[in-house]
């Protein structure tokens, strides 16, 4: 019997500071995964915490995590150096329904630290660009310094249309400010053959109501990567349940109507 709780050590190959409280960790190990699947990363003495994989699913030599300094585990990860070891279990969960997305227009909506699964999905789209229709990314952050995908935007822009927005702009900011409902006019999709994928904090709900719904996207074709306390990763500990679903087994990706009509 396989011990699903046993983590494997993995070496930190590179650390990059993405914002005042987010670091990118490049970990030297091959993981076969679908964008939006997550791993449990751990440090002995501190425990484990869930993180979505941010790198391309085609990358075979390493994978990336974006770690926000917010809890016990992420905080100790922030203190580590290149060459240090952490532990990994996974990948867990379902990931975005790639086959269903095929051939369709795609609108991706993400905010703040919700970008890793979307970033991974974008890498997948770029590799398979001809299989998809028009692709848009709407990404919001608190300030321009909090935009975690700064280094990727110019490369991604060759294949997808990107709209960046911040809550608090600084001098010289050329993007949008606030929740950009007028973007509805800029997005040209065929609502009958389009999907949306989302991951991000609470205000994302407003994006659904004010942007995705006016675009004519039904709830069933809006895929949300949900967040809970995924603790054991294998559907036992009950920490990540939401209604009759386990985020670690049935999610983290759900149809918006599954999430929206859920009692908790």
């Amino acid at each position, binding site marked *: 019997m396989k011990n*699903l709780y*046993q983590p494997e*050590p993995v070496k930190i190959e590179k650390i990059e500071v993405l914002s005042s409280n987010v670091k990118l960790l490049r970990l030297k190990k091959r993981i076969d995964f679908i964008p939006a699947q997550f791993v449990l990363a751990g440090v*002995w*003495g501190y425990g484990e*915490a869930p993180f979505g994989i941010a790198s391309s699913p085609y990358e075979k030599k390493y994978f990336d995590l974006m770690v926000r300094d917010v809890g016990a585990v992420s905080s100790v990860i922030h203190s580590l150096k290149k060459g240090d070891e952490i532990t990994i279990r996974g990948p867990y969960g379902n990931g975005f329904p790639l086959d269903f997305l095929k051939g369709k227009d795609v609108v991706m909506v993400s905010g703040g630290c919700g970008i890793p699964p979307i970033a991974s999905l974008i890498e997948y789209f770029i590799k398979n660009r001809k299989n998809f229709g028009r692709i848009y990314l709407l990404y919001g952050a608190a300030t321009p310094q909090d935009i975690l995908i700064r280094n990727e935007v110019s490369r991604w822009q060759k294949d997808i249309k990107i709209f960046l927005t911040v809550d608090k702009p600084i001098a010289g900011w050329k993007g949008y400010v606030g929740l950009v409902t007028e973007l509805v006019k800029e997005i040209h999709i065929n609502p009958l053959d389009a999907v949306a994928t989302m991951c991000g904090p609470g205000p994302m709900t407003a994006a659904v109501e004010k942007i995705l719904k006016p675009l004519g996207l039904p709830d069933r074709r809006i895929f949300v990567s949900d967040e*809970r306390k995924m603790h054991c990763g294998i559907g*036992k500990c009950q*920490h990540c349940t939401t209604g009759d679903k386990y985020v670690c087994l049935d999610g983290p990706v759900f149809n918006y109507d599954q999430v929206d009509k859920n009692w908790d």
Partner: protein
Amino acid sequence: MVSVLEKSRIPDLLEDLSKKYSVAYFQKDKTALSAKGYFFPPQETLFSYLFKNKKLSVSSRSRRKFLLFGLDPIDLEALDQLDEIMTKPKEDYFYLQQRKNSIIVGLAEYPLKVPVTVGDLILEKINENQYRAVALSKIGFDLIKNRNFKIEKNPEITDYPEETNGLRELVKDSEFLSEVVLWSWRTKHPIWDKLGKICLGCGICTYVCPICHCFLVEDRVKLDGSDCARCRLWDACTLNNFAKIAGGKNYRPNQKYRYFNWFYHKFVRAYKEYGKSQCVGCTRCQKYCPAHIDIEKILLEIIKDYKNEKSISA
């Protein structure tokens, strides 16, 4: 031909068995806790990690087989459910290691009408002095070979009534309960607000429950920093921070939601997952609740209102 055990020989039998196995005699009336703790302890070490040489060791079971004696049919049913939960859809290594190393001997105070699907040997009371032995596994057959059992042609068999209670009868219709509990939330039944105020959020109901299996994992580092034990501890979905994530967001911020979630898991999510309620009607939760919450009364109240509404709308 029936293999029987005289009631007076139970201590002798246990003494014999303890020469070969490590034996626990579970006596329901002597503890608030169920037997789940033998396989899913309140706290256990899963891994040990030595920082100096990065050596990881997985906690292993003891080499001696563990024999658990005395589970009644209700607790056997609960154990059967917990086995299923810990096996499907993914296997819980630590629980199953303990279970595979164990022998279960059930003790029923009445002849069983429905066959038991868990355990190795069941002893059913057939008269004031004797139990009939029913072996369920190879190990069970071997146990009957013990000198304390004897073969009798026609022992006296009394048909003692099955032990039951209102709750146990209620949970038999798990499909109906899943519908009623969900209905009560959707229709904003006032009972959940009331319970949100009464429930102390102490978690006792989940600790005494023979099926509840929420847990958390915690790393404990020795004071000198030399090694770390990754421990699993019982958790309870009725506790404050159960659904809280790093950064502080609590997905079930008040007791009403947490208490309902306990019900929802037992009667709705469990039904969808395994086709039955995760309640066998042992009544420990209502016996030990410091706020005197009686889940049978709650179920009866919402069932009554459900039936009323359905009869009005019909």
